[in-house]
Structure formats: structure tokens, C-alpha cells
């Protein structure tokens, strides 16, 4: 499974439809404080099935929906799509017939999230397992949030062991 593209619409400060091409090697993301860099990568963790709004820095999952700015009114829907190249056919059986997998998560204010893979509605759990099988996912040790390095250092030994469990 190769990640190739991330699309955002209405997700936090990305109110307009935005497309992020994910290419091989090292990609850097730059910009001033508060411009949306962390929001961009949070969208990836969110579409992979992040279930805790706290890991999205919110006080409710609706906090990921664009809440308005100087000129723009708040939105009621946020949608993120992650496109995966599956030509190596190493996705879980349920999804392995397709060359390309498009995983989409859409949230509507006060109605919760709906997940789709290639247009077909699935449960959050199916999406989480899809990524877990690829040693990936919202809680993968390879997704290092801003400030998480400090958390690992100050974590109690029991909490650190749990990070190890994610790898086992």
C-alpha cells in the first residue's frame, strides 16, 4: 500500500478544497505559526480513523469542521480523502481487489462521521484495521504529533510500554 494523495474540504482551516500530493522520499511542510501545517497532517490521522477528539486538539469531534473566520461563515461538513495505490495487492482481503483505494471520512455537525472505501460505506473499525494491517494508522509510532517527543520523555514507564505495543 502506497499513500499517494490527501484531499481536504472544510477540515479545520482548510475550508476550500485542497489537494496534497504525497510523493516518494522526504517532503517538507513549511509556513508561519498558525497557518495550518499541523492541521494538514491531522487530517491524515483523522481519515485513518482517529477516534479521540483530544488527539485532534479539540473538545469535541465537531471541532474539526471549519468554524468560520474573519469573512467566512462556519461550515457544517468536513471531508477528507486519502488515496492509496494498491498495485502490490497487499491490502486486507475485503479491499484487495482494487488497484486504488480511496478512503473517505465525512463528518456532519452533530451527526458524527461516515467512512467510505471506494464509495462503499464501511465502519470506523474496518478503516482502522485496514491501516493497522499496513503497520500504519492514526496511533502508529510513525505519526509524531507536535510536542509528542516531550510526552515520550516525560511519560511513565507503563505509558511508554504501550507505545511499544503499537509496534508488536
Amino acid at each position, binding site marked *: 500500500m*502506497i*499513500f499517494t494523495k490527501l484531499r481536504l474540504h472544510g477540515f*479545520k*482551516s*482548510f*475550508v*476550500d478544497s*485542497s*489537494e*496534497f500530493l*504525497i*510523493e*516518494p*522520499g*522526504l*517532503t*517538507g*511542510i*513549511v*509556513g*508561519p*505559526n498558525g*497557518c*495550518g*501545517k*499541523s*492541521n*494538514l*497532517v491531522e487530517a*491524515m*490521522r483523522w481519515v485513518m480513523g482517529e477516534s479521540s477528539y483530544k488527539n485532534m486538539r479539540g473538545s469535541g469531534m465537531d471541532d474539526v469542521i471549519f468554524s*468560520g*473566520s*474573519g*469573512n*467566512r461563515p462556519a461550515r457544517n461538513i468536513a471531508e477528507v480523502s486519502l488515496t492509496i495505490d494498491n498495485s502490490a495487492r497487499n491490502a486486507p482481503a475485503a479491499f484487495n481487489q482494487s488497484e486504488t483505494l480511496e478512503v473517505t471520512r465525512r463528518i456532519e455537525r452533530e451527526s458524527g462521521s461516515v467512512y467510505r472505501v471506494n464509495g462503499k460505506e464501511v465502519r470506523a473499525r474496518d478503516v482502522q484495521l485496514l491501516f493497522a494491517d*499496513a*503497520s*500504519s494508522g492514526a496511533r*502508529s*509510532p*510513525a*505519526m*509524531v*504529533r*507536535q510536542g509528542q*517527543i*516531550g510526552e*515520550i*520523555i516525560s511519560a*511513565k*514507564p*507503563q505509558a*511508554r*510500554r504501550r*507505545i*511499544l*505495543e503499537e*509496534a*508488536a
Partner: protein
Amino acid sequence: GRQRLLAAFEQVNHHFKDLFVTLFGGGEAELQLVESDDPLEAGLEILAKPPGKKPQTMTLLSGGEQALTAMSLIFAIFLTNPSPICVLDEVDAPLDDANVERFCDLLDEMGRRTDTRFITITHNPITMARMRRLFGVTMAERGVSQLVSVDLEQAERFLEAS
């Protein structure tokens, strides 16, 4: 369950020792399972000795030394089970210039050993220069983010953007 965790622990510990020495240019470190004989109940302790220094509790290490040690653990776990994508959000913030270069050397090495695609958020011009490509996030319209492809020179102007 227990066996798998112990096997993972051995592998992670092996990678961790190597990565620590690489990032610190010497010294030694290791992981230990403590507080219980049952690995599923144990705690994960980190023992680290930077080059030329006495082994000490993690708390006495400097901010940058702690960051490099935690980074060794994260990449050790990563190497044990590489994922197709790796996102690093400002992990270079506490590092001095020499250590930022070592961090980037490590990313290059990870890039050679795996097919993983790396996404690195940074404010550091050294890191920017070591990336294969750069994307800028702007808020030309207040409160509204836009993604745009940039080259290194544009990125450095970005830093002055606000």
C-alpha cells in the same frame, strides 16, 4: 501476545542501541522492561549515556539530548515495523544545527532502508534544505489555509511571511 511483545522488544532494543550511537556520535543506551516479570505489565525504561558523560536518569539530560533519545526510540520502533507513511511534526525544534544535520542524515538513512514516504513539518532552514521537495501552507486570507508548492528560496521568504 507476551511472546510477540518480547520479540518486538528485543528487535526494538537492537535498533535503539544503534540509532542512539548514530545520533550521538558515540555513547551507549538501552531499553529495559521493569516493574514486572510479565512484559504485558512491565514499564519501558530508557537508560542513556551520551558520549563522554556518566549514565544518568533521562531527566538530567538536556532538552536536545532527550529529544535525540526519544527520536532513537521512535525510529527503532519504526524500523521494527516500517509503515508506508511517516509524519514528523516539528521534531527538530530543540536541536542545535549539528544535531539537525544528524537528524536529516537519519531521515536519509531511513529513506534508503524503507519505501516509506516522509512528511516533515519544520521551521528550520537546515531541514528545509535537506528535503527533496517543499510545500508551503499560507493564510493569505485570514483563517483560511492554502497549500502551495515552493522551492527553498520561496520557503525562506515564507518564514518572514507574517
